[in-house]
């Protein structure tokens, strides 16, 4: 593939500083987001959940593991939604609303950490192999292909099944799964840019490889990176919720949404609210992140990142 041909006119772009370009990107992003109602709603949902994760413990009426008792000391089990318990109580007698709010922490924190690590690693690898090319690129690409051929859930089940479920294990699994995907996306974005005039100019100025990678090429691949990060985040939420459902997520009694769905699976006739609340929360968050990612893609006119 001849990348230079595909980027006709790229060489005409004035060589602005990376900082200025980054600020402009963020500024125009906010403005453009506001014009797209769906993307706006998606972003809003994500922001609401992030805020819930941060201030949740303050607004949650009960702790996530507390069994609620009435004045006689009997457990309040399977109470239907009311002012006191907006999402009712579950079969153990815990406030579902509080559990969903507390659970937001975990469902955002774990996939968040995992996504950040995977994106940082993937970016470093992708930039390096994309820019240096040659045999390194050939070898690395084949390794990536083989890693990508392993089904995500199977690898996760095998690893957590043998290591035993723990938050650290979950993060490691997600990082292992998503780093190759991010690497591949960033690599192809880098290939598009590396022959541009401003990169050429930096090379002629005698800049170091590190400088070129992170100050010249990185800002150019930021759109791809932003979309990819958002997509990875939504897939990570889903993956970790699935693992929780399969009993390989975080340990009870933590209010992991996937585990909550699993626990309430048999309650669909008697206390359906204890099933709907966590299932709805997962759906909302994943839809929100996806809408946001879609908005990012349109704003950046970026067409990649469609591979799951």
């Amino acid at each position, binding site marked *: 593939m001849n990348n230079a041909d595909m980027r006709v006119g790229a060489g005409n772009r004035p060589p602005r500083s990376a900082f200025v370009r980054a600020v402009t990107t963020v500024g125009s992003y906010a403005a453009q987001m506001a014009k797209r109602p769906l993307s706006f709603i998606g972003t809003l949902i994500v922001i609401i959940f992030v805020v819930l994760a941060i201030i949740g413990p303050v607004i949650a009426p009960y702790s996530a*593991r507390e069994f609620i008792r009435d004045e006689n000391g009997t457990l309040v*089990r399977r109470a239907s939604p009311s002012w006191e318990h907006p999402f009712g109580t579950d*079969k153990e007698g815990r406030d579902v609303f509080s559990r969903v709010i507390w659970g937001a922490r975990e469902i955002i924190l774990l996939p968040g950490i995992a996504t950040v690590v995977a994106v940082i690693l993937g970016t470093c690898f992708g930039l390096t192999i994309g820019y240096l090319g040659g045999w390194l690129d050939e070898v690395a690409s084949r390794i990536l292909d083989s890693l990508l051929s392993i089904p995500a859930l199977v690898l996760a089940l095998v690893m957590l*099944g043998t290591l035993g479920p723990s938050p650290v294990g979950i993060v490691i699994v997600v990082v292992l799964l998503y780093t190759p995907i991010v690497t591949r996306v960033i690599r192809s974005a880098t290939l598009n840019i590396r022959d541009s005039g401003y990169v050429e100019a930096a090379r002629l100025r005698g800049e170091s490889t590190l400088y070129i990678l992170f100050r010249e090429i990185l800002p150019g691949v930021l759109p791809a990176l932003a979309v990819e990060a958002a997509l990875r985040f939504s897939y990570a939420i889903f993956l970790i919720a699935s693992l929780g459902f399969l009993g390989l997520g975080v340990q009870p*009694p933590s209010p992991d949404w996937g585990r909550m769905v699993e626990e309430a*699976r*048999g309650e669909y006739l008697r206390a359906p609210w204890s099933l709907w609340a966590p299932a709805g929360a997962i759906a909302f968050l994943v839809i929100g992140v996806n809408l946001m990612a879609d908005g990012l893609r349109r704003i950046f006119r970026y067409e990649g990142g469609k591979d799951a």
Partner: protein
Amino acid sequence: MFIHKVRWQKGSIVRLLTVGVLAVLILAVGGVASAQDGEGVLRVGMVSPENLDPATGSNDPEVLFNRTIYDYLVEVTPDGVLAPNLAYDWEISEDGLTYTFFLEEGVTFHDGSAFSAADVVFTFNRLQELGSPATSLLGEFTVEAVDDLTVAFELAGPNADFMFGVASRFALILKDGTENPNVLGSGDDLFANFNGTGPFILSEYSAGERAFFVANENYWIEGQPMLAELEFLFIDDTLTQIDALRSGVVDFIFKLDVDQVPTLEGASGITIVDRATNQHPVIRIRSDEGALGEDVRVRQAFKYATNRQELLETVQEGFGVLGNNDPIGPAYGQFFDEDIEGVPFDPEMACELIQEATGEERISTDFYVVDAFNYESLGVALQQQWEQGCIDVNILLRSESLYYADTEWLEVDLGITGWGDQPVPQGYLVQAYVTDGIFNETHFSDADVDELVAQAAVTADLDERAAIYSEISQIFAERGPVIIPWFASVVGAVSDNVSGLEMHPFPGQTDFRTVSVNE
């Protein structure tokens, strides 16, 4: 290992041939084809059986599958009483060392051969050779045929549980010389190794999917079985089983998760059946030197911090009877001593004992919870209760297959273990609570218990035995290493068009011979 997966394509020649051959066989064996004993088909939804060898297959689906094809010498009725089966009567010598069984005449195996004493001798020798779990009740013995229809067992020593060994779920009578019972053959002899005297004949089997049986026309009890056909559908998920029952795909399901049972309440045409059993969860506190429960005050603190009544009502949804922290439960009838006072729920007392024993305000430890039945809910509920009793635990969920396969369950300080139903309490005591018990998971060592258990093993007189068990229960109340919150009921559900079905406390031993279905 014992089963080869058979997948039949619809209309395949093999299947046609097999069905054809079977039809001819049935015609030949049954004489007149139209003279069918029963009518109607019973369809049972159950977890897939894995180990089909009658001597070792131990869980409900496996035993149910086997007892459909084979008969016992003597069986335990749902009420816990010994009842004759292939042996119509038996005698015990004065010294309690010789047991003589008198066998039914005119019984034939599915292949047409006659049943005789040699088959019984073969079966019980095989149980010994394979080290079947039945041997823990049978003890040491030799067996020989007195004549064609009489069998005598010589015991190495007095054994009060011997009859329960003969009636144990593994002691299904095989044909003399059977090498690979319940292993699929090839060609026309696909089911030649499924050769019992039982009420039903296997006619189709697809591992993990279904098994189909037809009534044994030559069954030795007149008028039985009352069904024409029997079908097992293998459904591993109990929620799916419940849906299958609701939608009429199956007529009978058993061993339901108790928290799912109420979803069936009020469903028209379905009756929920439950039976008290001795199946119980054990919250075991390791009590050897250096372990969490070395100090008896710590063990008692855990008991004071546990509200067993609430656990039974909530986690177990009331399906069971209250346990009293020892394995000799109310379902054992006269062996259970209801006068022994249990440890009441008193979190303040627990805090005091913790303070006395450790000098600390609170203690904190890991709590291993096995991912089976409703034990995850039990673990979470205990964590809440114990918090008030100055005990903080960190739950570690373990998958059943890993936890028990490894020695982890025998080593940890604090954990939940599930113990299945046993016909006599002696089994639990010998395996788990004497110093050298093979499953002594608490590492409990109490000279008094060791002596009493050994005494009970040779005490045939039931009243004397009950007195010994009462003493053991008293020791458990004072210093035992376990909390037993409940003895679970086993719960099943049956469609209203089925009559005569009496679920056994061990559902795998449910008798289908007198069941009928009104279409």
